[in-house]
Structures are given as structure tokens and as C-alpha cells.
């Protein structure tokens, strides 16, 4: 599971009103390189919950990767920023698309229900009494 998906997922348990963001607990994760597409990031960024994304990177022990405050659009999409190592857009791209959580759990902030992640696949199945 990439952090992009984690950013979109919310808990679905009955009685939970928002269930977002799911707390990430990762015991094992890896990175896979993906080509950067600035247009995709541009379209995606307004939909990203920045605080949840930062919290997720912190949970993976990567406090340096993203700043607390979202960088301005001009800074992210500055001319040629995509080619500069360590630029804002590269970091965002890396955080969203290149980090794969392999093992761990997602925890619902309201009900405390834990959704296990195994082999990179979160198990979001609910029990009968949670539907």
C-alpha cells in the first residue's frame, strides 16, 4: 500500500462518523522507483490531506521528508524543480507513490479498530456486526 492510498482511505465501521485519518503503524516498508509526472501531482495535490500525509511519513520514521506546512504551489511547481534532487515536488512524489508499506496496521481513530496490512494489502473487511 502506498501513502497515496492511505491518504484516501477512511474507516468504514458502523457508527464512525469520519474515521479519518487512519493511524498508520508500519513494521516493514520498502521503496520502488516510479517516474515522476508533474501534471499528475498537480491534479492530485488539492485532494491530498496534507496533515494526514505528514503524519504518515512521521509514522514511517521519516521526519525530514515533508515539512509540517504544505509548501506553496509556486514552490512545488517551479520551473525545473522536477529535475532537482530533493526539491519539494520530488519529495511529495516520493512520499505518495514510491513508499510501499508491506507489513503493519491501519487503526481507526474513532473506534480503535485495527485493519492489518499483510504483503502490502490492507485487509479492510468488516465483521458482520460492524456493517
Amino acid at each position, binding site marked *: 500500500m502506498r501513502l*497515496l492510498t492511505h491518504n484516501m482511505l477512511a474507516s468504514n465501521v458502523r457508527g464512525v462518523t469520519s474515521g479519518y485519518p487512519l493511524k498508520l503503524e508500519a513494521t516493514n516498508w520498502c521503496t520502488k522507483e516510479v517516474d515522476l509526472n508533474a501534471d499528475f501531482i498537480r491534479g492530485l495535490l488539492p485532494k491530498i*490531506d496534507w496533515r494526514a500525509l505528514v503524519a504518515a511519513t512521521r509514522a514511517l520514521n521519516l521526519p525530514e521528508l515533508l515539512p509540517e506546512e504544505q509548501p506553496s504551489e509556486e514552490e512545488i511547481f517551479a520551473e525545473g524543480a522536477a529535475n532537482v534532487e530533493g526539491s519539494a515536488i520530488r519529495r511529495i512524489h516520493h512520499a505518495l507513490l514510491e513508499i510501499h508499506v508491506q507489513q503493519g496496521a491501519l487503526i481507526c481513530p474513532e473506534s480503535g479498530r485495527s485493519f492489518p496490512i499483510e504483503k*502490502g494489502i490492507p485487509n479492510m473487511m468488516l465483521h458482520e456486526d460492524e456493517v
Partner: protein
Amino acid sequence: MPRPEIQAPPDVFYNEAEARKYTTSSRIIEIQARISERALELLALPNDGVPKLLLDIGCGSGLSGETLSEHGHQWIGYDISQSMLDVALERETEGDLLLADMGQGLGLRPGVIDGAISISAVQWLCNADKSSHDPRLRLKAFFGSLYRCLARGARAVLQFYADNVKQSEMIVTYAMRAGFAGGVVIDWPHSSKAKKSYLVLTCGAPSVHTSLPKGKGEDGEMCSDDDDGDSSGEDGDRTVGIYERNRPNKKQKTKKNGKGKQWLLKKKEQMRRKGHDVPTDTKYTGRKRKTYF
């Protein structure tokens, strides 16, 4: 073989042996690829080369997702079968996979997804595989959550095999109740094997862009051989694909008063010309007998 939906629940039916078919059978792979290609076409994403974030509901082994990846899109796949997802892992699909039951709702934040496709999955919702399952509630939960997570104006294309008209109506009704605009597009409606139904839904208020696209082969155009779902069988036994029970009844055209005096006289004349012994025409010819005879 009966349809998979009546054999077992999806998480049981798609076991390891069944999932294996989705990597080894070139026929299944080809059909899946063709359907997903068509679904993507019906999704009508803007042609600006910008990748989108899409959903693949019932992604299975990721065959349909592969088509999305080929077009450069990022996707999140949902499936209920662990075995199928294991195969997807083996194939190293590019999208993210989730083990989830779509009848429980998708569990996504509102308005974040640019489009959704689903290949041969929605009909599973019509089954009640557990005592706690109510198809109506599950359809409602699925379409409701799908509507919420899609961005305004986004589309969803769901290919499905309905068992009967009622089932198809039920699916469409619940989609409309969730707020979607759209309807069913049927490709190759005259063929029993190649016939495919796509539920094309648009999120948000209906506009010019929500008009339904036309299905393939609607105006009598026949599908070519390689569009047929089944590649087995010799050319000789290829028949026109109409289900026997769907074929319109051939009724004899008889009017209330029989075929009429004109017709009878014509026939008698014909028989005379052939040299048969035919009674002469009188005022009684072609008259109805009295009922008490």
C-alpha cells in the same frame, strides 16, 4: 456450467485454482483486456495526457488494472478474494490493492477519485451469500460510497452480467437512487456470447456530457469472429447468437375470419391450372360453416 454467481460466494469461488486461470488462460486474459479497454473508452477521460487516480472494483488478479497502467493511470484495486490478490501480487501490478467487500462500502474520502471501472463484479452484490446479507442494503452501500468518493463530473463504468431483467433493473435503480445519472450501454446486443452490459454512471447533475454513448453493434452490425467471446468451435457450427428462449415466437398470421374469399379463389385457380379436380365456384365458396353443423 452455471454462472459463477450461483456456484459459491466470491471469496470462496475465486480460490487458488480459479485464480490460477487468470494467469494461465490466454483466453480469459484476452477477454478481460478487451472489456477493460472498452470500459476505459466509455469512461471518457479528458484526453490531455494527464494520469488520473482511478478505482478498479473487483480488480481480481489485476488484469483490468494492467490496462489502466498501460494508459499511465494510477489505480486502487478492490477485491474480496485473497487468492486473486495473491496472483495480482505475483504479477506485480502497479496499482494498490485492498482486500475489501464492496457491499460494505468503499471507505474512501469524499470527492477524491477521478473515475472508476469494474469488470464483471457488480452482479455479485445481488446474491445473499450469508444470512446477514441483504442485496438491497449492499447495493445501496456500494453505490452510495461510490458516489461520495467520486469527484463531481467523474464517471464510473461497471460491466456486469445480470442473470435476468429484474436483477439488471435492481442494479440500475440503486445506482440512480444514489444520485448517479446514466444508464446501461449494451455492446453486441444480438449476440449471446459477445453481449456485454456496461452501466455508465456520471456523478453530479446531468449535463450535455452525460448523454449515453452508443453500444457497439446496435444497428445490426455483426461482431467479427475475434470479437466473439469464445474462440473454440469450427466455423461450421457458428450460429446466429440468439438465445432460444429470447427468439420471438413465429405466429401464423391468421385473421379472425380465416384467410378470406380472395385467397381461396386464388388457390382454387392455382390448383385448376395444375389440373386438379376442383369444385366450381359458387355463392357458398369460402363461406363459414354454420356453428351447429
